[in-house]
């Protein structure tokens, strides 16, 4: 090509591709400096490992009423966390509870992410009547407590791990949809969206190829905050006796049984309370850290 414009000196930055400082690298660098978020990350990693180990191995069968074992045992070498009201090993039950909590937390977050992002993108990008319908629907549900909707829906759907996630997602997706709608609303007006349309991009490409990647920071933060809410709601439902069907152990159901036994044996209540508190704190610290790292403008 006989183009007279040469590669000028100003491009002399070298031909070797430089290290990319993109959203991720930059975000994680800032996250690493946040001690609290880092500690939370370490704790959650351990928790995930425990939950995965519990899939294959627990010290005892968490559902089995062990022969020759006393009920309401305190911590001992054989049973580090003691035994419960039926003589089941509490450590094994707590490990299974961690599994349930994380499945519910991450699973709900995944449902919320999928539904909220799709609905939010459609409302924010197409606007008009479709946005009005979605917004009115969300605003109506904002007036009703989410926990009430979750309880009623769960009773209607019937018991089960999947149904618990659906019941919690039923209201939790709305916050995500609102957030994504707002993002789509502002990003659709950027010039690069116009440029994409001019170069023949269809709506789907604009939504998922341009608007979504550019609003990923706040979406990740929101998805992280959904996890502790879901864990807490599941524990609350199980505490009420509505949650995970017995003999599966959930931190909520262990706490419920422990509350009944509080005068006899305080440990049974203590373990799930401590585990829940630490986990909720850790997810919240991580969420805060991610928000500061990926979405510095939203810092409060």
């Amino acid at each position, binding site marked *: *090509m006989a*183009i*007279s*414009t040469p*590669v000028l000196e100003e491009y002399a930055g070298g031909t070797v591709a430089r290290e990319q400082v993109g959203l991720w690298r930059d975000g994680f660098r800032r996250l690493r400096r946040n001690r609290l978020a880092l500690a939370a990350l370490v704790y959650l990693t351990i928790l995930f490992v425990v939950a995965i180990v519990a899939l294959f191995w627990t010290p005892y069968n968490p559902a089995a009423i062990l022969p020759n074992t006393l009920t309401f045992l305190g911590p001992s070498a054989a049973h580090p966390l003691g035994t419960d009201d039926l003589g089941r090993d509490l450590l094994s039950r707590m490990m299974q509870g961690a599994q349930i909590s994380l499945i519910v937390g991450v699973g709900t977050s995944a449902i919320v992410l999928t539904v909220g992002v799709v609905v939010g993108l459609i409302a924010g990008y197409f606007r008009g009547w479709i946005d009005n319908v979605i917004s009115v629907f969300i605003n109506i549900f904002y007036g009703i407590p989410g926990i009430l909707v979750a309880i009623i829906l769960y009773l209607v759907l019937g018991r089960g791990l999947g149904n618990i996630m659906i019941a919690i997602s039923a209201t939790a997706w709305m916050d995500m949809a609102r957030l994504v709608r707002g993002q789509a609303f502002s990003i659709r007006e950027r*010039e690069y969206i116009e440029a994409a349309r001019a170069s*023949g991009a*269809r709506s789907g490409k604009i939504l998922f190829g341009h608007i979504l*990647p550019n609003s990923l920071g706040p979406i990740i933060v929101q998805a992280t905050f959904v996890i502790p809410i879901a864990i807490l709601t599941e524990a609350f439902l199980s505490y009420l006796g509505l949650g995970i069907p017995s003999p599966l152990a959930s931190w909520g159901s262990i706490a419920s049984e422990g509350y009944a036994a509080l005068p006899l044996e305080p440990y049974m209540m203590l373990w799930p309370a401590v585990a829940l508190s630490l986990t909720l704190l850790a997810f919240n610290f991580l969420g805060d850290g991610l928000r500061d790292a990926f979405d510095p403008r939203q810092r409060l």
Partner: protein
Amino acid sequence: MTDTVVAPAPRVVPAVEPLLRVVNVVKHFGAGVGSSVKAVDGVSFDILPGETVGLVGESGCGKSTLGRLITQLIPVTSGEVVLDGVDITRLRGEKLRQQRKQLQMIFQDPYASLDPRMTVGDIIAEPLVNFKMISGRAKDARVQELLRTVGLNPYFNNRYPHEFSGGQRQRIGIARALALNPRLIICDEPVSALDVSIQAQIINLLEDLQREFTLTYLFIAHDLSVVRHISNRVMVMYLGKIVEVAPSEDLYTSQEHPYTRALLSSIPVPDPRIESKRRLVELSGEIPSPLNPPSGCRFHTRCPIAQVPGVCADVEPPLELKGDGHLAACHFSEQVRTKIAITV
């Protein structure tokens, strides 16, 4: 407006089918009940294949809106945009999308018009991917070829836009516009956001590319100096209407509309001896609101030779032929050069 004027198509070389024919295009933006912003109010012109037409006017005159109407990024209120014999204002969906292959756009702001989350290679390849023209290794080769064509290092394809300077980014935008081998490129103030030293580079590049790929340009700018060298013809727009059209050199030597004369007088001359003899035609006041444009000639509120009260305030002047291929919309165009002095 009741008396919208359909201009006869001005042609430099007669008897060639125009590539783009804009016929009486109107764009009104709703602004509350019963009122609308008349951003583009009855504009007609032709662009011949291989031609560069400059479009000049101050901020808010509707020139960028006109560019977006031609590319159908926003729909017209009325009128036709005929590209190569097809009225694209009547096309919807997939048919309109297919027409975009012929018609690309270079945007004003090189910082805002590139997706910050995409690599330069992906940005340039996007039009190719959208039309499934090419993929895999052939696509990479095409991207590198395009980067080389616009004077960038072809191995920069995996970098992100924020790693480039304004001029380099505009080159990326140009490469994207070239990817589909379009026939017409709308350049929407492609150098307004750049340093003066970079402006010349980009304009030279656009000229080289035009020769290389037989491109046709509509070149939008807000001052006459930028479009002078690149354009075959220049159109001057004021408040949603075209007030003067002339072959480029003709417009710079003789103006038939007082607004054009005022715009021309505002260009500084880099020769101090000439500069000291220059006189600035000062226009009084701001550009009027397009919500409620002045009656008669829209320029009469700021015109140094307007007869108010009189014909200028009452009758809208039609865009008529004043010379060879030279059109202007002024009742007193013969007085423009005698009554408005731009040299001492």
